[in-house]
């Protein structure tokens, strides 16, 4: 695990705290809205429990760096600074959604934030990350790609091919495995011959950045910062964050309720609690500020829900647009 180098200042910590509770609130509200049938469909994968990993890792990036992830993408989008209003609108399939209501929960993206999207085919975004990183190298830029992936995603061919390609082409990618101990219902040790997933790095001859506590935003930030700078200077690196998802795999998951004990253990080390402890341990009289953030975040999400509910649905014109690029001569 990374040793602390630069002391993270109070403003930064408060900002991370704000992001973490923003994500939690966003996800709790999505869950509610789904039960109220205001968010519909079959796929809605919540990020609750993972917040410190997403926030800490994205914080390690510069603005011109790139982020890409799988379908559990709400939290990453928020951490990257995407406005909650169009994100919530996308959940409700509205025309004002980040993806115009055509992508849905699993396919959020914001080009202006260098957030290249959520992708719903397990592992499918890994070679895309390699390709985006290739552009950086090709044009002598110093931008890095941070690619989030699940523990389950390490077991299909995309992982093997993309990570190996990043090695032989020396691409600036941070492969960040969010190991939440399960892929749907399958525990890591049932799915992976080598359950210490960061060790996969060795097989590809890339840097093994080890394991980090995914519940601790500061530790994630430090490990990710090292990894990002390594990737910028040298090439690909693999980092593993250990975390846990609080909700079902997706909203239609019925099995997760069996994991109550395990869940309670993880909730005792909830990213919100851990971040609060870091702040209160380091600064005096910070509680009032934190409570104020909690309240502000609720208002932000209230507004996002209102915005989404009042937004128009996509039209027939939207249905048939963007199948192909129309002004297509690059």
């Amino acid at each position, binding site marked *: 695990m990374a040793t602390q180098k630069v002391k993270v200042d109070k403003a930064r910590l408060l900002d991370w705290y704000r992001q973490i509770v923003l994500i939690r609130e966003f996800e709790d509200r999505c869950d509610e809205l789904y039960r109220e049938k205001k968010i519909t469909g079959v796929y809605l994968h919540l990020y609750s429990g993972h917040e410190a990993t997403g926030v800490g890792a994205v914080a390690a990036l510069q603005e011109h760096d790139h982020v890409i992830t799988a379908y559990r993408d709400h939290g990453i989008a928020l951490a990257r600074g995407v406005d909650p209003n169009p994100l919530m609108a996308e959940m409700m399939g509205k025309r004002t959604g980040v993806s115009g209501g055509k992508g849905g929960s699993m396919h959020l993206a914001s080009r202006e934030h260098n957030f*290249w999207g959520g992708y719903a085919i397990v592992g499918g975004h890994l070679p895309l990350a390699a390709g985006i990183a290739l552009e950086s190298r090709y044009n002598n830029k110093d931008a890095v790609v941070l690619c989030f992936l699940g523990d389950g995603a390490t077991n299909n061919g995309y992982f093997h091919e993309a990570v190996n390609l990043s090695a032989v082409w020396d691409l600036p990618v941070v492969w960040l495995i969010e190991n939440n101990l399960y892929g749907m219902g399958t525990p890591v040790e049932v799915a992976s011959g080598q359950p210490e997933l960061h060790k996969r790095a060795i097989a590809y001859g890339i840097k093994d950045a080890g394991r980090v506590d995914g519940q601790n935003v500061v530790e994630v930030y430090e490990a990710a910062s090292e990894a990002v700078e390594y990737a910028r200077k040298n090439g690909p690196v693999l980092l593993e964050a250990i975390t846990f998802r609080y909700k079902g795999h997706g909203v239609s998951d019925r099995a997760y309720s069996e994991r109550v004990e395990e869940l309670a253990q993880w909730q005792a080390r909830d990213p919100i609690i851990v971040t609060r402890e870091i702040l209160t341990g380091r600064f005096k009289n910070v509680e009032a500020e934190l409570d104020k953030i909690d309240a502000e975040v609720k208002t932000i999400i209230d507004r996002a829900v209102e915005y989404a509910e009042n937004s128009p649905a996509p039209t027939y014109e939207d249905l048939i647009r963007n199948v192909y*690029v129309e002004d297509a001569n*690059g």
Partner: protein
Amino acid sequence: MAEKNLPMREALRAALHEEMVRDERVFVMGEEVGAWQGTHRVTRGFLEEFGPKRVRDTPISEMAIAGAAVGAAMAGLRPVAEIMTINFAFLAFDALINHAAKIHYMFNGQFRVPMVLRAATGWGNQATATHSHTPEPVFAHFPGLYVAMPSTPADAKGMLKAAIRDDNPVLFSEVIALYPKPGPVPDDPDFLIPIGKSDIKREGDDVTIVTIGRGVEWSLQAAESLAKEGIECEVIDLRWLRPLDMEPVIESFKKTNRCVVVEECLPHFSLGSEIAAQIQEKAFDYMDAPVKRVSAMDVPLPYARDIELMALPDTQKVINAVKEVL
């Protein structure tokens, strides 16, 4: 305009070369494209000329070849990725269909995927069941992807250049048997064949033959031979399976009232299935005979030469089909 007589492989090479010279963003990647000089010699000499940054040998990783091309294209490069033969493109199917073809739509136009995936296609020389596919209709099933299949060196050049310059993803199928066949090719570095534009390769009033790729050769040979018997065939080379240029087909059909589709692919859910469906939808009142298909037989291709050839379309089968619809 000046022309050169070139085999299709050289026409393709010229197209790629010109586009790489014209646009720094264009690069090639794939198995054996560099040091080996290209499995089909289309990238011969490129590594020496353009260097390893723009001529990128890859591991045997079809998912990553197609997927990394998608990412690089989204980020602003213009990859021309090569899949050694289309038989291996099945491994790249997800990257092509779920990613290349969907990303522009799914993210509401935020990203473009200006990539070309070149793949050598077709049967012959006892390549056997796993190595004899012409599965272009399978890829053409999906909106968001274009599918090209040239039949002459000139078309190959103009179509590849258009594909590279277009901002949409293109699967570019190159018929292996046509690589060595020569034809006149314009020198003009801006010679382009518009995406989705078919070509009437021979005019005639009696039967419309709709075809693509290698089928053009069989169809022209059949037309030639039938002409001696006074039967005039119109041969339409679609050139692209997507977009599918149906207007000239319908127009021709309204004149001939008869149609034979000649294709190298299997008959089930084939190019011919689509053409026949559209003709009955759009020109039912003009039909004087059922649309006839000449396709490969509905079996995996065997090794033994005698039965391999039995399973495949040829000029005689086209002649027979034309006579059946007359």
